[in-house]
């Protein structure tokens, strides 16, 4: 087909569609006589129109039922159509069983075609029907039409909607208040039962002939959204149909949240405003403009002044219309009591009022007035302010390069941002291990913010191709999922450090953090770095964070590569130090005598290149502690590191280990808590805190924490550590059965098969804990034969000590010293309680002397 041909076809189609359906075929035959292929084409296109509604634009959007007089709907006999609303048709019908007339609202079918929705509709309708209140429309019955559209039967009202009343202009204040209070009473009754309206508007408020206000359509808004279509959009009384009745929606609702009772309060405020002024609270030419007004504008105060709206009412209004739900009345009940109080004071100003009412009002004012005012003012000023962002989590930047080998680059950039933000003094920045858990997550921003206890979330993405990199970043006020700042950067790879700094600085500005000149200089002084070196460094940090021995070896290679490219690049040395440390600690089997000197040398180099490197000082401290057993030296380095960057989890973490070992349990707990605070989801941080609680004898707290950590879904190694500690804790609590079950779980986490587990159960049944310890010792000795790993030597010493074999225990501890075991710094505090039987032995002091520790 050619474009010209298509134009021709369209023309004929258009004309054909204007004919009656039955005339179309003949019409096409007539105009296409000379061109059979054109005729076929047009007919085939017309044939694709569904039979029932040939012309889409004229078809009703909502499959209306269009019932006629005499039609039956269940037990009900239709009398006449009363009106059409966004939600369907309303009929007057007769219920012959009770001999009364009722109102029947038939809801659109298209929206309700799913079983579960129908089910939900019934639930909601049932809940609404339970609301027996004079200010809420009474629901009698529900059912389904033969077309599948649900219908609701309710009391029949005579009068007009508030919308219709408003067409006559604003209401006198007293009348407006009277209506508003009735509406409030209905709302309060519903909110008390946990039912939210979600679509309160003048169309949904009815004033009966007797002046009773009834709220209509409770619970239906959630189920049925008006749909965008030509016919509804042309309805001038309903701007913004696309997102529902935008004008009365709360800011949180226009943002797509489902809303809570406070959303109804907002809508109530908008309606009250309109009742008093005759003008909409939020206006705009289009739905988008109305949304903008709801989110950003205050309703005009001029209109209120023009109508002489009393000041008390203005304050109530203002509080209802707060953008932040937390600043509004928390419930309709609270609003109602405030409204009633306002009424009294308003009436008091009227000369006609009786004396007792004046007295009554005065009492109320004296008792409640003063502090109420303060509450109101405080909550108004507690509006959202970007300065409220005092803690930030940087979510893993998304790698949009479509190349998973670039993953480390995005992760590395995430980490650099975390470091930068911490350095420039954001009070709390969540560290890498916690945020990495959200990689590829399915959680929403408010959920994440809540879990991490932060107010700010940074999100972004990276696209890298060759030497070119594009970074997009945005800062979101987490609790409200609201933008604070966003930007994108297109750069050469060489400038990548600058991008990181710019992003950090922009975020600092966005949250109005005052950067000292020194901090600015610190950020700006980023020396140009060889992109390849940076690249290799990021790769190294990625492998390092994986912690398996093979990944750690890859990390070493990457850091060395970075150093080869740029021998004066401090972070690469710190990374190298940390990797050697891990390899010599328990994550790898490198002998400490090899790993630790390398770790120390690298840490010292990092510090030499950048004396302010918190990472460098921490690395050095860990070596001092676990390898040299030099407690004072290590403590000094830890303190230095924390002073340089209080958001560095690893510094708090390792320092708290020192404090346990030094027998300062409460300080250890405090430091461990800081580690968890900057890294709430880090299993290692939580592990060390649990150990500290156990050490301090706070057994129940320790158990609580471990059980919570299990919910984070730790990896098998961590799982084994947690169950192992629970075993120790239950032992100390004198609960051997529970301890044994934890022992079994520890073995399972290590991958012991069911045969092995059965054996353990058998041993325990026959010989109790002693049997288990003997069996542990056997396998440890077996391991030792295979490989002389310092960690196993330490375990063997513990097992002998538990079995009461002091001679062997000391022999093995001595061996640990010779191996320079990185576990030995824990000898004195012994949080697992293995060495208790050794303490009184003079050889114990000898061990400590040999280690260079004072007793």
């Amino acid at each position, binding site marked *: 087909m050619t474009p010209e041909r298509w134009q021709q076809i369209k023309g004929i189609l258009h004309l054909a569609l204007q004919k009656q359906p039955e005339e179309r075929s003949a019409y096409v035959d007539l105009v296409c006589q000379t061109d059979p292929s054109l005729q076929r084409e047009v007919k085939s296109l017309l044939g694709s129109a569904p039979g029932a509604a040939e012309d889409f634009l004229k078809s009703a959007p909502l499959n209306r039922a269009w019932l006629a007089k005499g039609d039956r709907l269940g037990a009900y006999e239709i009398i006449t159509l009363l009106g059409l609303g966004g939600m369907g048709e309303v009929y007057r019908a007769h219920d012959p069983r009770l001999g009364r007339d009722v109102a029947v609202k038939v809801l659109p079918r298209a929206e309700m075609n799913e079983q579960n929705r129908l089910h939900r509709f019934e639930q909601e309708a049932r809940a609404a029907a339970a609301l027996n209140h004079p200010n809420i429309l009474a629901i009698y019955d529900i059912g389904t039409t033969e077309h599948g559209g649900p219908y609701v039967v309710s009391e029949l009202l005579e009068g007009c909607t508030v919308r219709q009343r408003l067409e006559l202009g604003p209401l006198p204040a007293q009348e407006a208040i009277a209506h508003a209070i009735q509406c409030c009473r209905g709302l309060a009754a519903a909110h008390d039962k946990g039912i939210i309206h979600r679509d309160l508007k003048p169309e949904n408020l009815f004033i009966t002939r007797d002046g009773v206000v009834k709220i209509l359509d409770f619970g239906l808004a959630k189920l049925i959204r008006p749909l965008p279509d030509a016919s509804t959009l042309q309805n001038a009384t309903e701007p913004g149909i696309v997102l529902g009745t935008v004008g009365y929606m709360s800011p949180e609702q226009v943002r797509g949240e489902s809303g809570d009772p406070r959303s109804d309060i907002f809508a109530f405020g908008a309606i009250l405003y309109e009742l008093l002024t005759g003008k909409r609270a939020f206006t705009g030419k*289009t739905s*988008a403009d109305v949304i903008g007004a709801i*989110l950003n504008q205050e309703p005009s105060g001029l209109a209120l002044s023009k109508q002489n709206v009393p000041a008390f009412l203005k304050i109530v209004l203002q509080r209802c219309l707060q953008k932040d739900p937390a600043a509004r009345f928390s419930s309709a009940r609270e609003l109602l009591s405030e409204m009633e109080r306002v009424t009294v004071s308003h009436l008091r100003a009227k000369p006609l009022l009786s004396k007792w009412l004046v007295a009554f009002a005065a009492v109320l004012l004296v008792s409640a007035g003063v502090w109420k005012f303060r509450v109101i003012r405080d909550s108004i000023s507690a509006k959202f302010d970007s300065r409220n962002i005092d803690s930030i989590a940087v979510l893993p930047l998304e790698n949009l390069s479509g190349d998973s080998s670039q993953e480390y680059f995005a992760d590395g950039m995430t980490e650099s941002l975390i470091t930068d933000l911490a350095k420039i003094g954001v009070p709390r920045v969540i560290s890498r291990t916690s945020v990495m858990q959200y990689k590829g997550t399915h959680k929403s921003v408010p959920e994440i913010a809540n879990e991490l206890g932060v107010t700010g979330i940074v999100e972004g993405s990276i696209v890298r191709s060759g030497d070119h990199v594009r970074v997009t970043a945005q800062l979101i006020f987490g609790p409200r999922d609201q933008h604070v700042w966003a930007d994108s950067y297109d750069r050469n790879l060489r400038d990548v450090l600058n991008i990181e700094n710019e992003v950090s600085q922009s975020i600092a500005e966005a949250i109005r953090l005052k950067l000292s000149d020194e901090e600015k200089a610190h950020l700006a002084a980023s020396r140009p770095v060889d992109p390849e070196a940076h690249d290799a460094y990021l790769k190294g940090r990625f492998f390092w964070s994986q912690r398996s021995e093979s990944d750690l070896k890859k990390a070493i290679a990457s850091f060395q590569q970075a150093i080869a490219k740029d021998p004066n690049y401090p972070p690469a040395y710190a990374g190298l130090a940390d990797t050697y440390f891990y390899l010599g600690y328990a994550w790898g089997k490198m002998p400490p005598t090899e790993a630790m000197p390398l770790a120390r040398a690298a840490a010292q180099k990092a510090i030499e290149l950048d004396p302010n490197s918190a990472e460098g000082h921490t690395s050095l401290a860990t070596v001092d502690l676990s390898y040299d057993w030099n407690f004072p030296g290590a403590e000094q380095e830890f303190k230095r590191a924390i002073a340089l960057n209080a958001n560095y989890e690893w510094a708090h973490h390792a320092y708290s280990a020192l404090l346990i070992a030094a027998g300062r349990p409460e300080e250890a707990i405090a430091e461990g808590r800081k580690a968890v605070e900057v890294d709430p989801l880090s299993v290692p941080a939580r592990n060390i805190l649990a150990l500290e609680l156990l050490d301090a004898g706070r057994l129940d707290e320790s158990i609580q924490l471990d059980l919570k950590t299990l919910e984070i879904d730790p990896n098998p190694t961590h799982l084994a550590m947690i169950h192992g500690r629970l075993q120790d804790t239950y032992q100390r609590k004198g609960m051997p059965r529970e301890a044994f079950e934890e022992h079994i779980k520890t073995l399972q986490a290590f991958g012991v098969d069911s045969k092995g587990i059965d054996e353990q159960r058998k041993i325990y049944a026959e010989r109790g804990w002693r049997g288990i310890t003997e069996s542990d010792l056997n396998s440890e000795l077996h391991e030792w034969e295979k490989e002389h790993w310092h960690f196993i030597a330490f375990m063997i010493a513990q097992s002998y000590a538990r079995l009461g074999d002091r001679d062997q225990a000391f022999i093995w501890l001595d061996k640990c010293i010779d191996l320079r075991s990185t576990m030995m710094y824990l000898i004195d505090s012994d949080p697992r309680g293995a060495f208790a039987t050794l303490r009184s032995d003079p050889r114990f002091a000898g061990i400590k002397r040999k280690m260079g520790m004072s007793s």
Partner: protein
Amino acid sequence: MSASSSPHQVSELLMRWREGDSNALDSLIPVVYAELRRVARGHLRRERPHHTLQSAALVHEAYVRLASQTSPQWENRAHFFGVAARLMREILVDHARNRGAAKRGAGTTQIALNEALNIPQLKSVDLILLDDALLRLSKLDERQGRIVELRFFAGLSIEDTSEALGISPATVSREWTTARLWLRREIAKANTA
């Protein structure tokens, strides 16, 4: 692009774009794209298992987010929706294609868009087929393709579409009607093929 962190950045870019600065569009697209992806992802996270991507809701939500950080009187709305519709189409179609690829042999991906589209008769639109058909339609009539994109993927009303493209509402509805007939037939053809 400069690293300015002005909160009015998006509207400035739109302004510049409207004034003929084509670089502005290049700078704008990643911001809008990131936002749409974010919103879409948020929905995918929250939504029910057989998630219905309501493109109109997504675009509007993205607009609300971006609009809320700038002036509420956003005159460049139409331009925003122009960009957003194109990006939304990419996101949705990519999503459909990826899902299809993941479930190879499970047939083409069906995503129920009827809520967003308000075409009750088109219960579930095969997005990939739709995208292909739309591509062909755009070759026959570029403006008609744009109309479908705006109506379909950004959920714009007839009026908003007319504003965005600077043509009368009557023209929009005429073109929209015939475009839908054409698309419906093409999709039906492909489905039976």
